[in-house]
């Protein structure tokens, strides 16, 4: 591979601004930012609860540009991807998106992401972590081209019940026919706008992908069309509430990417993340297959559960016990916790040591909380929830309603 010397001055820029920065900066009245994969993005714009309310009641725009993106093409693209991820990529037809995980040799999850089958044999893989190294190493023996094109694609997550109406008003004819995980192409500002019916909120919503040069035009068109539909920018904090409600796991939060773990018991298999539905043993060999077959035989070490916790004390990093008396034993910890406005419940994702966590099992969370600088502790009863905490029918309805 010849090194790309066109960006050799890259080190002079410590943190990038996304193609939408002129707009996001103007709207970020709180002026709170954080660094996401070398881009600066907003934690929140004006008020996290109101931004969240836009996701569930109107529509909200999230700057997704820093999401790591890879373009995978070539004669062996399908074979390569099928060896990489645990699900059967042959079933993801052109114009469809699939949620995937990929594992190391030991069947431990390296990362999760969405795989876009853009056009026949032309794929985009989006991931939380940078994956070029693992993808390139996995390419041995395949005739495939892998390019990380994160910088070359600007992206917005556009989520909420009024999103379809806004996109129609923007002139995207036929966008309402997109089914969940569908992809559509629309002419826009002399170029092409890629719309996928995907998102991280568990709600009706879309992700919009465009060349950086047309990013501001897209933002402006979206906000103009959405003015009467309650459009708001949303930051990472609001998105986080909705993704926990949807029950989605997050790399670095709910599991440690296997390639960054030092200790052997810190990594998780797809089964241990409640993602067993993504593992297909009926397809050709994939990395981790032998280990996962072995795990199926021997049993998993951990179980990821969704918990509905009594009371309203946030169960962040709480220990989970099997009972609440002198004989109690720690059976796990909470990895993500939030008060869910949609479910009106105190919810959490937790990793438990097997065999704890069967539905109906008795579980208790030991929650430490602070009031006016005084720490206190409560033992709260937990209930294992099956399915998402919040799963509105509009998420799947096609065509979506106009609300």
């Amino acid at each position, binding site marked *: 591979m010849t090194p790309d010397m066109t960006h050799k001055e890259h080190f002079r820029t410590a943190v990038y601004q996304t193609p939408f920065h002129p707009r996001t900066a103007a709207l970020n009245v709180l002026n709170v930012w954080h660094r996401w994969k070398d881009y600066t993005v907003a934690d929140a714009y004006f008020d996290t609860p109101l931004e969240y309310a836009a996701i569930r009641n109107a529509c909200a725009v999230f700057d997704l540009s820093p999401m790591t993106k890879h373009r995978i093409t070539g004669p062996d693209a399908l074979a390569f991807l099928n060896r990489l991820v645990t699900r059967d990529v042959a079933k993801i037809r052109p114009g469809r998106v699939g949620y995937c995980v990929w594992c190391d040799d030991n069947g431990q999850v390296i990362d999760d992401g969405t795989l876009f089958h853009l056009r026949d044999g032309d794929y985009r893989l989006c991931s939380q972590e940078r994956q070029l190294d693992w993808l390139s190493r996995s390419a041995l*023996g395949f005739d495939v081209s892998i390019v990380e094109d994160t910088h070359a694609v600007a992206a917005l997550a556009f989520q909420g019940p009024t999103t379809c109406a806004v996109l129609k008003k923007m002139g995207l004819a036929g966008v309402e026919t997109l089914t969940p995980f569908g992809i559509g192409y629309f002419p826009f500002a002399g170029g092409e706008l890629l719309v996928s019916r995907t998102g991280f909120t568990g709600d009706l919503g879309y992700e919009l992908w465009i060349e950086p040069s047309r990013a501001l035009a897209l933002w402006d068109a979206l906000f103009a069309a959405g003015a009467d539909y309650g459009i708001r920018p949303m930051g990472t904090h609001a998105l986080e509430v909705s993704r926990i409600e949807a029950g989605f796991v997050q790399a670095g939060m709910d599991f440690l990417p296997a390639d960054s773990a030092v200790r052997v018991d810190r990594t998780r298999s797809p089964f241990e993340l409640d993602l067993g539905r993504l593992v297909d043993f009926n397809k050709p*060999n994939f990395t981790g*297959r032998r280990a996962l077959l072995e795990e199926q035989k021997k049993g998993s070490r951990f179980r990821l559960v969704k918990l509905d916790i009594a009371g309203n004390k946030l169960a962040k990093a709480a220990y989970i016990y099997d009972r609440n008396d002198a004989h109690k034993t720690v059976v796990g910890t909470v990895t993500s916790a939030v008060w869910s406005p949609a479910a009106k419940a105190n919810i959490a994702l937790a990793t438990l040591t097997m065999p704890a966590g069967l539905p109906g099992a008795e579980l208790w969370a030991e929650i430490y909380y602070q009031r006016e600088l005084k720490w206190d502790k409560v033992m709260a009863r937990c209930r294992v929830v099956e399915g998402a905490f919040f799963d509105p029918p509009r998420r799947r309805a096609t065509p979506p309603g106009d609300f």
Partner: protein
Amino acid sequence: MTESQRVIIVGAGHNGLVCAAYLARAGRQVLVLEAADQVGGAAVTREFAPGFRVSACAHLLYLLDAGISRDLDLAGHGLKLARGSLRTVALAAEGEHLVLDGGRVAAGPLGAADGAALAEFHHRMQRFARVLAKQHNRRPPRIAGGGRSELMAAALLGFDIRRLGRDDMREFLRIAGTNIFDILEESFASPQLKGALALDAVLGTNLGPRSNNSMLTLLHRLSGNTAPGLPVGGMGAVTAALAAAAQRAGVTVRTSSPVARITLAGDRVSGVELESGETLAAGTVVSNADPVRTLLTLVGARHLEAGFAQRVHHLRAKGTAAKLHLALDRLPEFSRLAAEQVGERLVIAPDPVYVEHAFDHSKYGQSSTAPVLEITIPTVHDASLAPAGKHVLSAVVQYAPYIAGTGADADARRSQFLERVLAVLETYSPTLRQHLIAAELLMPADLEREFRLTGGHWHHGELALDQFLMLRPVPGAAQYAMPIGGLYLCGAGCHPGGGVMGSAGGNAARAVLAAERSR
């Protein structure tokens, strides 16, 4: 017996044949497939000029496992030594040659201090080499997991080292990973002696005397515990005897049957497909081919875990040893060397710095301007290899870096190196060229092609601490069984490595049988 119970062995090298013989003796139906038109792999005798035959790759026998030789009754199957225990003559361009017989100076200029130091060095190295020798016929322990038996195996290795006693153990641990150059410098004064010992350490490796691990390769060479010998009929006689023993045990051997790929059914091997397109079913496939060829070419990276495939891909297996064959119309003369010593093992490595300089070129992709040589003239002891009165000179020549490819460039590199090698030989044998009938030089790329050795490496992969014992060829594949069910490796790429030893084949056979018992 059904086809799924059949064992196919890919490659009829010495290890493949040993493995086949042991499996057949245990009652398995074994078919050995050899790509070449005769068995032997890199232990083979073939004609290189009309009427002249030579051991075309390995040319000396000093590591063949005595237990295997006895088990398979190789003597009864025709293996005979034309000459055992060759002495080593360290040729001097000027002045007296130095003749070594193990740890003893048989003749030549060596001071009393060096003589005593050599005896002590030799005995100590023999003790250390025995520690390695004890591991030869054991399956290396797994590094992680595997339970009690693996821990015991690891403990046994530690125990063998501990049993050397305090002083030897300290010395063993001090030098095991180091370079031969420093050890020679602290032990001896004579450049001639140091040069000859340095050559022993680096022969067949991609190491110079100053490279780390060159001490380990010396110990590996000594671990056979026998002086080099010449079989009657060349090295091909060793594998011919092995093939006869295997066939006696019921093994079927097919030559001229190159395997194109190892076929899979789900997570297991299902057999092989030959280059001719013929498919053969088998429940177990044992590959005597090198690890890279077996796993990345015959199986294919896509059928392996990505991380494992990478480890195999990064296996260090670049050969630097070339092989020279000369057909001569009479016994060559070497200046100041008595005629009765011309048949010994002659080495051209006048001092360790000379050897290091020869290596330097190869680091930068060039052949040595002044190469080092290990020479044998087997026809002195075995007249069957050449027409009456005529002779064959066989030499391992270093260093010629592995450069893939054929064609005009490769031909130019070969003839340039041949010229240099002959020029060096002429300094020691000025009349050599006058007696030359034919010459053949096999560069590493030629060895790769003829013997199907990836990277042209004699040992199927560098012998070094990072590719030794439980790390050979790569972690996750060091116990002969590959991650794919029913697939095994049995060649020099496995523990205990290269040299015509046979232990890897024997160990692999035991691994196949042990897996069947536990299934």
